[in-house]
């Protein structure tokens, strides 16, 4: 930071003899920032400052007219340039034709103000320094040492406002933003619009809808369900409600519990007849011994008896039919043979005694007439 700062300062100091305050300020800044550096460097800086003050004093002696002391325009950093220009303008406006001593005193006040701290003391010290240099134009080491010490004390007692540069940067940024907004041309209009929209909300008073007596216009409103119902929509609505209520399983164990409840997994203990609930309570004898069922209606002997016994044997050996289905088979044969009783008697076989208790309507194919 330091070398850059000094580089920045040099042209500046060269350029503006008139407002040397800036130079002093910069140097003090630099000087302050050197606190932690070696004492040698410090000493060097103090020397430089003293030299600067001396040059200023020499300028005083010469007393050049203001228009002749026009400095050479050099490239400056933008900010510094702007500041210096501002300063220049101020000075040009107010104190163009003032005597140099007055100017110097003004500058001293300005410096004091800009540095902060005890303003009066700073100012007086600065002026003191200037007077010393004015009184002793020749180089005398004693004075120099004395002055430098004084200055050192003075500077060590001061606080340098470093935030100013930052502030100025911020300001400039704000300025630029403002400028851009103006360029775009909707800075003020936007504000007004927002104000317009905001106002009614500020004045908003809540209205109670049910405060007054109803008009009774819609009293005859019929709330009948005349519109058609959409079963798919209803089903989906129900489904969505159910999904809103039920939670998804947190982990695989809960998932497996759900699967078991849904019958997708085996329940423990493993049973091969799991899920065959309708045949659970049926004794095996009902499956196997079917002849008592035909005893009550079948003739004791003859072709029908023979046939029915064979049917019973076949059914008792069939593991894939339930008891109900087996009984149904027997009942069907009973009904069928009962209908053919006449034919049976004609043939010479024995007749079927009776119909079953629960006569069923079985399917009968329609036989077309010949």
């Amino acid at each position, binding site marked *: 930071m330091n070398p850059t700062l000094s580089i920045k300062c040099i042209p500046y100091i060269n350029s503006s003899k008139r407002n040397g305050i800036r130079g002093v300020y910069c140097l003090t800044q630099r000087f302050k920032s050197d606190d932690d550096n070696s004492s040698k460097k410090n000493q060097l800086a103090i020397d430089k400052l003293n030299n600067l003050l001396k040059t200023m004093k020499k300028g005083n002696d010469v007393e050049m007219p203001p228009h002749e002391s026009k400095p050479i325009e050099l490239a400056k950093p933008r900010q510094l340039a702007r500041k210096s220009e501002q300063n220049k303008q101020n000075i040009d406006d107010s104190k163009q034709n003032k005597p140099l001593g007055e100017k110097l005193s003004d500058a001293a006040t300005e410096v004091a103000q800009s540095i902060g701290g005890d303003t009066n003391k700073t100012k007086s010290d600065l002026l003191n320094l200037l007077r010393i240099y004015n009184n002793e134009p020749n180089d005398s080491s004693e004075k120099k040492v004395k002055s430098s010490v004084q200055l050192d004390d003075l500077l060590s007692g001061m606080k340098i406002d470093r935030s100013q540069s930052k502030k100025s940067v911020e300001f400039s940024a704000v300025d630029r933003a403002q400028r851009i907004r103006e360029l775009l041309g909707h800075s003020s209009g936007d504000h007004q619009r927002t104000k317009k929209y905001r106002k009614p909300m500020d004045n908003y008073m809540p209205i109670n809808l049910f405060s007054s007596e109803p008009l009774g216009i819609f009293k005859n409103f019929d709330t009948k369900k005349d519109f*058609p119902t*959409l079963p798919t929509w209803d089903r989906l609505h129900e489904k969505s409600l159910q999904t809103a209520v039920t939670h998804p399983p947190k982990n695989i164990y809960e998932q497996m519990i759900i699967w078991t409840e849904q019958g997708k997994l085996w329940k423990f203990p493993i049973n091969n007849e799991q899920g065959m609930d309708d045949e659970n309570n049926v004794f095996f004898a009902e499956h196997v011994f079917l002849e008592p069922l035909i005893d009550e209606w079948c003739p004791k002997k003859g*072709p*029908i008896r*023979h*046939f029915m016994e*064979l*049917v019973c044997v076949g059914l008792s050996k069939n593991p894939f039919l339930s008891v109900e289905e087996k009984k*149904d*088979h027997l009942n*069907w*044969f009973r009904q*069928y043979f009962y209908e*053919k009783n006449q*034919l*049976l008697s*004609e*043939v010479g*076989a024995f007749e079927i005694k009776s119909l079953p208790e629960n006569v069923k309507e*079985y*399917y*009968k*194919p*329609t*036989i*077309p007439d010949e």
Partner: protein
Amino acid sequence: MAFIINAFQRCKALAKFQTPVNDTCLGVLPCYQQIRNKWPDFRMKKDARKRNTLKEYGVYKLRYNALRKNDIIPLEIQEIADKEIYNCPRDASITRIVQRCQVTSRPRGNVKRWRLSRIVFRHLADYNKLAGVQRAMW
């Protein structure tokens, strides 16, 4: 009078020529909308129809056959049974149904236990979509 009769008849004609409403769609769809079903193929649908027939009438055919195919029952009764079974639906027979792939309706090369064609089975098994199916390794 004639005018009234004429109007009445016109009303009748109007009622007759009303477009049929598709009940399942609440008349929202046009009347000649193609009706879609869950079957992958018309052959599959046909097979399903046969299976339903078998489910309903298979038992009767079985009983008639039991009556017919023996030499115990008197011949007169067997002849009657012959006629009756002839008039039963033909599709109510186990030989009429076809084992088809339930996904692609392919009639051959089906893996019986999963009711899938070998191609679909291979595909699903490759992606571990069939529980308990493992690639042979030895």
